[in-house]
């Protein structure tokens, strides 16, 4: 430990094609400290870690600029295996454990201790006998150091999630010569008490001289655990702070920041306070990766309500649950009438339309023409664009062509014509087709989920303007879900922030960056006074 820093990543830049994801980022970690790495989704945290671990994705896309120093010496990390040899370990967000193996076997996986035997003399190391005794004593030691009293011969299968996390940590600690451990959102799946225990384990590990990089978006945990903090925003270094010099509010502000100019500017107005259009009580949605755990809110007629939050926190689950695309439970009322969850056609019939975030998966029939895509819902749900002859029905090709051409013109869908296949369009134009399909339904209520994901800036602007126009001119009530806070703030009347499947707070677009930042990490602005007070 002669050098001042165990890890120095100096002026790291990384480009994927035209797209700069890391721009001159510097990260320094002292031995034995807990260093928090903060940032929103897409701020560059994972890319930075990929650089640190020498992931193939970095090397295969042209490497990176800048230098990495371990213990003050310049090194080149060629692969994750190389990183492990150089004393860098990672505790993954998704557990990398073999369920059918015991705790010991998992901890010692691919680093097994073994004794020579008759066969191994001839056939090499791979046939040596496992030395279960010393393996289990090593495992015991590692488990003890993370404060786990579970038997080392238990199978991983069927263990509580929190235990698996600790087994994972124990495995990293067991590696000899480990100098630096990266914890990637370790508390995301843990209960509160488990999270507290984890933090104390982390502190214990740090005390033994191992440095820790702690990636998270929970500001209160950062304040509880970290010694120093690096904040990334949009691939750039936003700030580096020591805990003692900062407050939770400052961190939230730094994390959100003001990103560029608003793309669409709307006249500020009072929040429409008409009748309640959509009333949701205790909504639970079982959408993998986006679970909703008990959300209640009202949407007023004529407003644009935004739903924001970090990825994986459940904001996408809300529209998908109301539209019954995933199993959902709860009381939903639309324009005063009860909506039965479980079949997507109920919501559609009630006059709700949705533009899905999963364009290719749910949003489009990629192999079918633009016009067929546009009229599909209206045809199936409202029996429009059909000739009816008794029980028989036939597509009304003329009417379909007409409405398709009209939509293509109105939404400026760039295509060769209404018969072009949806799969051959660009992302932005596909999104417009999805919007067109929702509009042909003439909905009174529209869900738009991540409408600007993966589309170019011109299309983004047009999509947002279309939404505003629909709201202002036709009085359509819109709920927009987006990861881009800036977008929500530019067109929404109110913004709900969701964290861990629960509604944290409903804010006005004019609320401060700090309020949004805190809400996104799950802290209601009203509460942070006390917590912030604690931290200081």
């Amino acid at each position, binding site marked *: 430990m002669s050098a001042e820093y165990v890890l120095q990543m100096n002026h790291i830049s990384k480009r994927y094609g035209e797209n700069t994801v890391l721009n001159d980022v510097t990260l320094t970690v002292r031995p034995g400290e807990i260093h928090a790495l903060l940032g929103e989704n897409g701020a560059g945290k994972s890319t930075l870690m990929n650089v640190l671990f020498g992931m193939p994705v970095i090397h295969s896309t042209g490497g990176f600029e800048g230098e990495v120093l371990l213990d003050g010496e310049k090194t080149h990390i060629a692969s994750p295996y190389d990183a492990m040899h150089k004393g860098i370990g990672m505790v993954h967000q998704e557990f990398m454990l073999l369920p059918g193996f015991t705790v010991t076997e998992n901890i010692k996986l691919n680093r097994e201790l073994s004794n020579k035997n008759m066969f191994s003399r001839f056939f090499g190391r791979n046939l040596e006998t496992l030395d279960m005794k010393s393996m289990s004593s090593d495992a015991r030691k590692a488990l003890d150091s993370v404060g786990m009293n579970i038997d080392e011969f238990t199978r991983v299968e069927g263990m509580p999630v929190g235990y698996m996390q600790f087994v994972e940590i124990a495995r990293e600690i067991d590696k000899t010569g480990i100098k630096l451990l990266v914890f990637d959102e370790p508390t995301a799946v843990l209960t509160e008490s488990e999270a507290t225990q984890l933090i104390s384990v982390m502190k214990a590990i740090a005390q033994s001289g191992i440095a820790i990089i702690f990636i998270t978006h929970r500001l209160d945990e950062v304040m509880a655990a970290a010694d120093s903090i690096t904040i990334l925003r949009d691939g750039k270094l936003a700030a580096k702070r020591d805990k003692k010099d900062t407050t939770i509010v400052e961190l939230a502000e730094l994390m959100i920041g003001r990103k560029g100019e608003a793309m669409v500017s709307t006249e500020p107005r009072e929040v429409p306070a008409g009748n309640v259009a959509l009333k949701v009580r205790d909504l639970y949605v079982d959408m993998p990766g986006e679970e909703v755990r008990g959300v209640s809110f009202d949407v007023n007629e004529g407003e644009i309500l935004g739903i924001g939050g970090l990825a994986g926190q459940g904001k996408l689950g809300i529209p998908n649950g109301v539209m019954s*695309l995933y199993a959902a439970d709860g009381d939903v009322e639309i324009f005063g009438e009860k909506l039965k969850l479980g079949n*997507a*056609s109920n919501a*559609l019939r009630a006059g709700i339309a949705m533009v899905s975030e999963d364009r290719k998966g*749910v949003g*489009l*029939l990629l192999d079918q023409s633009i016009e067929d895509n546009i009229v599909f819902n209206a045809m*199936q749900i409202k029996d429009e664009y059909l000739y009816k002859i008794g029980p028989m*029905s036939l597509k009304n090709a003329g009417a379909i062509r007409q409405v398709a051409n009209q939509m293509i013109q109105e939404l400026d869908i760039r295509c060769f014509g209404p018969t072009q296949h949806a799969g051959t369009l660009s992302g932005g134009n596909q999104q417009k087709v999805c919007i067109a399909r929702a509009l042909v339904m003439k909905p009174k209520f529209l869900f738009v989920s991540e409408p600007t994901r993966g589309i170019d800036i011109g299309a983004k602007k047009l999509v947002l303007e279309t939404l505003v126009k629909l709201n202002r001119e036709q009085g359509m009530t819109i709920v927009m879900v987006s990861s881009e806070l800036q977008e929500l703030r530019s067109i929404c009347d109110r913004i709900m922030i969701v964290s861990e499947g629960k509604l944290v707070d409903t804010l006005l677009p004019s609320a401060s960056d700090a309020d949004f930042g805190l809400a996104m990490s799950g802290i209601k602005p009203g509460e942070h006074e006390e917590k912030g007070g604690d931290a200081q």
Partner: protein
Amino acid sequence: MTKNKVQRIVAVILVIASIALAVLGFVNLPKREAAEGQKILTDLRIRTLLNATGDGVVESYVAIAKKDATAAAKAAGGGMSAIREAVAKAEEETRAKYSNATTDYAALDTSALEAAVAEDEVRLKAYYTAAYVAEQAYIDEHMAEAEAAAAAEREAKIAAGEDVPAEETITVDMSGFVATEEMTGLLAKADQAYEPVGAALQGIYPVLDASALSTLKGTIQDIVYQQGDDFTVQYDRYMAAGSGAALENPVSAFLVRYADDLLYGALALLVCAAVVLFYELLARKLGIPRIIIGLFFILLCFMSLWYDLSLSTLLSNTLVRMGMNSIMVLAMVPGIQCGISLNLGLPIGLVAGLIGGLMTIELGIPGWGGFLFAILVGIVIAAVCGWMYGHLLNRLKGEEMSVTTYVGFSIVSLMCIAWLVLPFTSLKLRWPLGTGLRNTIGLDGTNFRHILDDLLAFQIGDFVVPTGLLLFMLVCCFLVWLFTRSKTGVAMSAVGNNPRFAEATGINVDKMRLVGTVLSTVLGAVGILVYSQSYGFMQLYTAPRQMGFIAASAILIGGASTSRCKISHVLIGTFLFQGVLTLGMPVANMLVPGSTISETLRILISNGIILYALTKSGGESRA
């Protein structure tokens, strides 16, 4: 850019070559019937005649030499062995002397011979024409008898459990034919006309005597005229006899002979030029496999022309086979659209249709009533079985390809047992001895044999148009097309295209898959009945096993993928697939006589194209 240029240059060169060939062909083709063509034939004919009689001349010299040698030996007073020796020696010497003797053809005056031959040819032609007319009349008169006899023989064979060929040419026994008076008169005249030919030949080869001439008569007359031979056949025959040296201008004669092939070649080059020029467009619109198969089909067409096979008959057969297979191929459409991919479990439908057909025969319902009854029964059974099969497929989503394949195999094997125990009693269906149904059940006029094929059928030259069959095919295609445009049809193809999308619109995915599966199975039942009526037989036991694969590969050749298809894919695919098979067999037999290469071809094409489509569908799902 440069690639484009190369393309254009190659195309232009091909077009120029094609125009050159076409001009040559068009200039030379009319010459066959004109003076020039006749001159070529006459030259060849005279030379062949001279060559042939020249052999007779040698024989004459040998005979004379032998006689002289015998006389000389006897005069010398030698014994039998000495005589034999002397004769053998004389023969050998004479042969050696004359066989290698070259006649100076250029110096010969053949004008008398030519005139005589021309006269003889006219006479012979008159005779053979009359003979042909008389024979045809006889055949027409006795055809009914022969057909009855053939049918009886067929029945007997089927009763004995032997396999019978699908298409049989019925021949009339000509042993009872007696030459008419007209024929004898003309023959006498032809014989008269032979005299001056003989005389003229004697003028050239003085050694020929009357007996030699009468021996050579048959050969000479064959050389002079043969029934029904056109220019190319005569030319080939004379050339094969080695008379090419007689031609004043071999090159132009060659061009006249191959004028038609030059035209075909010109057309082929034009096709090549078009393909080279529009390759990108074709590749985009049709896809590479269709270009390959299409070009292969065109190649087969040209080859059958080259080998002077009757292309119109072959294309007519192609049309019939397209019609008989098309409904089974059509059965793939609802399957692919509803998302169960290729319905290789088609044998379920086929078996249902076969049961319908069997019941018609069992109950003895004749004609159209019987056919419609068979279809109705088939549809009902297929609907029930298809419904159960659909439930099975809904439980095993994602594994459709293997499930359908194994279901297809299993049902065929299961029915192999069923055919043995089903309680049918008609003797037309059962083995005469033992239990169970026959392997192949022949349909006849009392059932629905050719009921669609013969409906409104008409003929243009060799080209028979099975109007009823084609109409039925088009009507079925139209109905399926209408269905795909109905609300249910649209929902069904959405389910196949993107189940999650369909679910998001509240469509019951399982129900739609069920609808598609039932429809596919029902179409299979109708398809096998259409196939059987055209084929003339119902094949039980293992015969339906391969049919699912054939139908699947046909639609894939037509341009469908495992997740997307249109009606046009059915029509194009069936035509190309059946066309390649129908044309491939005779052409392959010309190339490699007596081979089973066409069967190998069928298996290669059908299985290869399925494999290709699977690699493609994998690629798409990954994207």
